């Protein structure tokens, strides 16, 4: 085989593989969307159709009217935004403390912080619930916002990020009489804004997609987040409202999809930071 034909052959194999994988990746989304416009009898009808014969908006009106979609979205957004902002505040502050100060006990305190990262959530499930009940936080958004607000991973991330900043900037501000918190707020935060977007996206996504947390803490339907709402539409054999469920699923994806497409590069940065450097 000549060199050229071999190159063409490899290219064909490569593209075929990539396209096959891409189809597998996109198929569940496409099917979700398609199902959300189908009538109940068509969902498992034969043959399966990508574009429904009798398309309907019933599924969307149902979740809007019967499943309190706006309230669900409001809850999910409030929880995700609050935990993202609070997490960003505490983790940048902590990262700054570890990156730019020397103090007795620093090494041990940092080692302790890293060690907490290996504790799996499973161990905490039962006692956390007991504590939230004592605090009166069951069925309250606080239960999902506060506990993770100073994540060790976030502090670790920002310590790395902030340690690359030149000390002269801070020293100059100190001479000008700026307070320590003022230095953090007015000098450090603007510099690390790109990193805050990266990690903020990860925090937001984690909260938006969280299922186990809301499942344990949020009891009354008016406090549910979107993952609980999707799950609530499934039942035993024959009782699942597939069309409505997929409509709710489609809506659960849209905000993250938009954010992801806008901030794709920042997103990848937040994800790889822990893995490759750490």
């Amino acid at each position: 085989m000549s060199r050229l034909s071999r190159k063409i052959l490899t290219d064909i194999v490569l593209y075929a593989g990539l396209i096959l994988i891409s189809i597998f990746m996109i198929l569940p989304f496409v099917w979700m969307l398609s199902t959300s416009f189908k009538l109940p009898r068509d969902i498992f009808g034969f043959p399966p159709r990508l574009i429904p014969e009798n398309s309907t908006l019933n599924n969307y009106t149902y979740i809007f009217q019967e499943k309190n979609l706006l309230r669900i979205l409001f809850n999910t957004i409030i929880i995700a935004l609050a935990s993202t902002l609070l997490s960003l505040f505490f983790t940048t502050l902590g990262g700054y403390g570890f990156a730019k100060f020397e103090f007795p006990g620093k090494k041990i305190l940092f080692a302790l912080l890293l060690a907490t990262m290996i504790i799996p959530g499973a161990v905490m499930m039962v006692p956390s619930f007991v504590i939230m009940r004592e605090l009166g936080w069951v069925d309250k958004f606080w239960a999902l916002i506060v506990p993770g607000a100073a994540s060790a991973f976030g502090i670790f991330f920002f310590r790395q990020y902030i340690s690359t900043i030149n000390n002269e900037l801070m020293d100059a501000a100190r001479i000008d009489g700026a307070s320590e918190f003022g230095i953090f707020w007015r000098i450090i935060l603007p510099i690390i804004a790109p990193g805050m977007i990266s990690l903020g996206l990860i925090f937001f996504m984690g909260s938006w997609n969280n299922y186990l947390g809301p499942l344990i803490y949020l009891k009354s339907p008016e406090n549910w987040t979107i993952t609980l709402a999707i799950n609530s539409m499934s039942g035993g054999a024959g009782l699942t409202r597939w069309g409505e469920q997929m409509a709710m699923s489609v809506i659960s994806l849209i905000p993250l999809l938009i954010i992801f497409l806008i901030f794709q590069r920042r997103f990848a940065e937040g994800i790889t930071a822990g893995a490759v450097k750490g």
Partner: protein
Amino acid sequence: MTRAQKRLLPDEPKASSPSRWQRIKKARWAYTFISPFYFLFAIFGLYPMVLSLYLSFTRWKGVGPMEFAGLINFGLIPKDKVFWQSMANGVILFFLYVPIMLFLALALAVILNSGRVKGFRFFRTLIFLPFITNMVAAGFAFRILLEKQNGLFNVLLKYAGLATIPWLENVWWARISLSLLILWAWLGYNMVIMLAGLQTIPRDLTEAAQVDGASPVQAFFHITVPLMRPVILFCMITSTIGSFGLFAEVSTLTGGGPVNATITPLIRIYNLAFRSYQFGYASALAYTFFALIFILTIIQFRLNQERE
């Protein structure tokens, strides 16, 4: 603490003269800045862990009096067939999807990184999309695709003249279906990590090997894979912990069945605590699970070191 640090301890009182106190006072801002983590960890981390340890020695329904039970809970664990089944499922799942996922992720990363493929960004975005999807939506969408009668997968098999597959009704097929869902969800994440890892490898190395007559496939196995070992190890360990800690994926796709074939330790613990209200036993099981995962992670580290 390392041994060297321990030896330094006796000297510390000397350092805690006024100068040490002054250093602490001077650093009061630093302590303030890092304090939120330790406050929150004390309340929502340390306290629950201690409480959980205490609970594991009691019999408690979540309300009413706690009854001290000594080691009874821990004595029940060896006989807990469902729990050991869930641990075994974790191991089986690991072998079903981790090797193929990591291989595909690395291969895709190398292909996309080589600049040989047009539309690099397009493919990367597509493959990464499932990662931002919540697993409740994904799990149910897969259930529709894998439906026995007229689900898309089985209809395609019928068109191809093949037998249909009981995707969710058979023990092994249910595990394979779950693996498919996990592969779908996590391939992009692992690929992005591998891509970042590849950027730290000098490109000249693989190019030089190919100039010396190595095929791209040889260069992949003899140069890229060994250099990427730390990144692969990271992906492997996170996948291991991940496959024991699956929750939403399993509860939506298979519900843990058929006959507990896909139940995970996390679901077992959740069911014990929040469905049958055995808070004491669930706590004992959670601690046992933590210990087992910890050992498993260390073994993986050791095995990797030995190979090097």
